[in-house]
């Protein structure tokens, strides 16, 4: 199993958010989690990425034969986990290019691969940016600083395509995107999809799933997955909302 979440319960500030959650993802699969506001979707994404604000009450997560709780935030990233943030953080003064260069090399180092030099990295970045319709001038700017909502999301996908993760978690990547930007972003994701990597897509709406076809759709309500199935569930939610699952 690529990612195996067993009986996971998580709380933050005395509030139980995830309750006995189970989820299995195999290599090459695309899973979508849909759920109403406050159901715990982003908490799941943050717990997977290693955010330290949460208290794990119970359960286990296994990722690529590692106990995920043994790995800190950066080790998870270096092992191939990637979170595309719902609200990417603005970091003035940290330039995009050297930051991403350092990120990719920290992953290569862990994998005992040769580090990528400046020139090769610049070429890689330029070509990936051009695929995503990102202006080269944007790469001279600070991380997410002064970006529009759409630019931030596009920049998350650029990072994802550079870091080429084994498991990408997209936390409401569609929110705040107009239809053209949504198409560019989802094209970027589809280009990256192979039989060796997996995706966990968190969204409220079916729209995103029109562009990225999931193998499985899960409905999350009140901290647990209450229904799993194929893309027909997304259509069901689009038609009737989440009410009937609650």
């Amino acid at each position: 199993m690529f990612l195996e979440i067993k009986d996971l319960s998580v709380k933050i500030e005395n509030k139980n958010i995830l309750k006995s959650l189970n989820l299995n993802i195999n290599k090459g699969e695309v899973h979508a989690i849909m759920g109403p506001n406050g159901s715990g979707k982003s908490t799941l994404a943050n717990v997977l990425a290693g955010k330290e604000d949460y208290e794990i009450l119970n359960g286990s997560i296994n990722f690529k034969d590692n106990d995920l709780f043994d790995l800190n935030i950066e080790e998870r990233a270096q092992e191939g986990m990637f979170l595309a943030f719902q609200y990417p953080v603005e970091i003035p003064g940290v330039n995009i290019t050297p930051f991403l260069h350092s990120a990719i090399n920290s992953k290569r180092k862990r994998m005992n691969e040769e580090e990528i030099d400046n020139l090769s990295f610049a070429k890689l970045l330029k070509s990936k940016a051009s695929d995503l319709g990102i202006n080269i001038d944007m790469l001279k700017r600070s991380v997410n600083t002064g970006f529009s909502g759409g630019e931030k999301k596009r920049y998350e996908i650029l990072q994802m395509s550079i870091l080429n993760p084994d498991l990408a978690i997209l936390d409401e990547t569609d929110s705040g995107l107009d239809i053209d930007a949504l198409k560019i972003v989802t094209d970027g994701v589809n280009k990256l999809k192979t039989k060796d990597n997996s995706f966990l897509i968190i969204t409220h709406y079916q729209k995103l799933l029109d562009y990225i076809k999931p193998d499985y759709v899960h409905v999350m309500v009140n901290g647990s997955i209450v229904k799993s199935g194929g893309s027909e569930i997304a259509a069901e939610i689009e038609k009737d909302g989440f009410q009937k699952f609650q």
Partner: protein
Amino acid sequence: MNIQDNYQKNKKNIFFSENKDIQTYREKLINIFENDRFDKKNNESLKNINLKNFFDFKYKYLISEETSVINNNQENSYSIVSVNGQCLSYKDDKIEITKILDEDYIDFSKNDIIENNDHFVNLNSLFLNSGFKILIKKNNNIKIKISNIITDDDLTIFQKNNYICEEGSSLNLIEEYENKNNSTSNILNVIKLEKNSQLNHFLIQDNSSNHNLIITTHSSVKKDSTYTQKVYNFSEGYVRNFHYSELKEANSEADLQGIFFLKDNNTSNNKTYVKHLAEDCKSNQVYKGILNDRSKATYFSNTHVDQVAQKTEGYQLSKGILLSDNASYFSKPELKIYADDVKCSHGSTIGPIDENAIFYLRSRGMSKIAATKILISSFINEELSSIDNEQMSEIIQKKLVRYLSKVK
């Protein structure tokens, strides 16, 4: 020993002690000391100060006769090694360097911008034992680098320097303070900018933990002139940077910037007082600090806009990153505005490093320590990238790398 006895005993080593007017002035200062309660709560010059370190008067006053060096190695460019606050006299058709004179002392004693209970300025005036005067002649564009060296342990330098930029002149002044002996430098820089002149003043402070550095600057800026001060404090010893500025004539400007990097038990006290006394003047202040361990800093800032000073622009900003729960940074920016057509603002942001930013960077594979260091560098990136002197920029970068290597 009290101040009076100390003064009497060391009179022979103190500048201008034969001058009657100066004697009278000094007696007034002694009175201020004797009648002051040294109220640390209400006296900004005493905040975070260990009084014993400065007022027990066990230090030496007699300055050994070391010779300073002046080199005019490139055209319009001079390098000076000032030893124990002294500088050789020098003269050419562009600049003139002399010892500080009685008249300069008296002239400064008449200023009323510095509070009479700033005891470090008073100590400086009372025990003055060194100092020089540099004059940049009309319409010259000059670069000067001064290395300030203290030769002896237990020495206290009370130094008063005058910098005068005549009309149309420009001075790029870099001062380095890198002392490693157990000593104190109490320096008062008096700066006068005549019409249409400029002074870019960089101060690099990197003293060891047993050297105390107290710098007070007074700048008076006339029409169409700009004084810029950039202080980079990497010292392990106590540092005080106080600045008093008077924007005396129209379209004059003061840009003050202070960046400090503190650790261990170190303290940095900063204060500014900018007086806008004419129309169309501008002042801009940015003070940023990174504080680790049990270090402390203060920033007291006062921008005073006189009622004639219409169209004033006055900005104050202080920011601090606290890398430890035991570090503290007290910031108090104040504006006093008596004109009605002005643009002024003040702001202060002090807190720990942004955990969300750390999480974001770590989630891309960066270690926590690398993420912390990159965020510290980014915090001061704007100021560092604005340094247009390549040599200065390299020096600061090296010192920053050294500071960051100690951040755990």
